[in-house]
């Protein structure tokens, strides 16, 4: 059985990318906590990871340098608006700063967990390569 570097990292590579995207979305929510008419968004992680694993990209691949870049592939799977916790805040803003902060902290911890898993995979690979 040979070592496949493509498969060595498993799901954690995709998970790390998604976690960083989710961190970005949550940071945007907090940045816009005082912006009128801003609607909070979030990524449905399990849905997004499923899509990332099946790697069904609806984007068009560029096979020539002069092809136009399509934006479809850049869309983040599972990105949708959050259900507001209260019906009306007076200015159309649906960001709950406390909730978003908690989610951000949770997401940061999960990002670190994914990092640990990846680190473990790398250490295992190093051990296998060195054979010590």
């Amino acid at each position, binding site marked *: 059985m040979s070592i496949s570097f493509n498969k060595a990292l498993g799901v954690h590579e995709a998970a*790390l*990318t998604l976690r*960083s*995207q989710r*961190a*970005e*979305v949550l*940071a*945007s*929510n*907090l*940045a*816009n*906590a*005082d*912006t*009128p008419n*801003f609607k909070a*968004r979030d*990524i449905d992680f399990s849905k997004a990871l499923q899509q990332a694993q099946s790697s069904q990209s609806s984007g068009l691949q560029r096979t020539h340098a002069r092809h136009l870049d*399509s*934006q*479809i592939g*850049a*869309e*983040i799977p599972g*990105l949708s608006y959050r259900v507001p916790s209260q019906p009306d805040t007076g200015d159309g803003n649906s960001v709950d*700063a406390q909730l978003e*902060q908690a989610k*951000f*902290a949770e997401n*940061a911890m999960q*990002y*670190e967990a994914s*990092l640990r898993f*990846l*680190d473990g995979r*790398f*250490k295992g690979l*190093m051990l296998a390569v060195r054979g010590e």
Partner: protein
Amino acid sequence: MGLFDIFDISGSAMSAQSVRLNTTASNIANADSVASSEGETYKARHPVFQTVLNGIGVSGQNNAAKAGVSVAGIVESQAAPIARYQPQNPLADENGFVYAPNISVVEEMANMISASRSYQTNVQIASTAKQLLTKTLSLGQ
């Protein structure tokens, strides 16, 4: 790319919140600046925030994760100035009135606390993103 964009997002929010702090400071500083006519009176200023979206998806919905914030403009309050009868004031008009801006200092203080809390939140977000990036850079070592 993911985490690096957080610095842009939090940075834009920090600069917007500092504009809000600036206007609050001006409003509190000028709460007692009287003038001799209604037109010359200081008007309370408030910033209007606006979302900055980078990249609009093809389906018409916005699918970009990155959404910063900017100050769309600063609006002056339309509240009518308060006329005070102070005939001894050198700025008083012929009827003995001076005009003070209609600023509620309590409201401005609450606004200031809200702005500073939002600023703190964004600083915290940026520092968390920095920690995560540092850890990512030391991956596999």
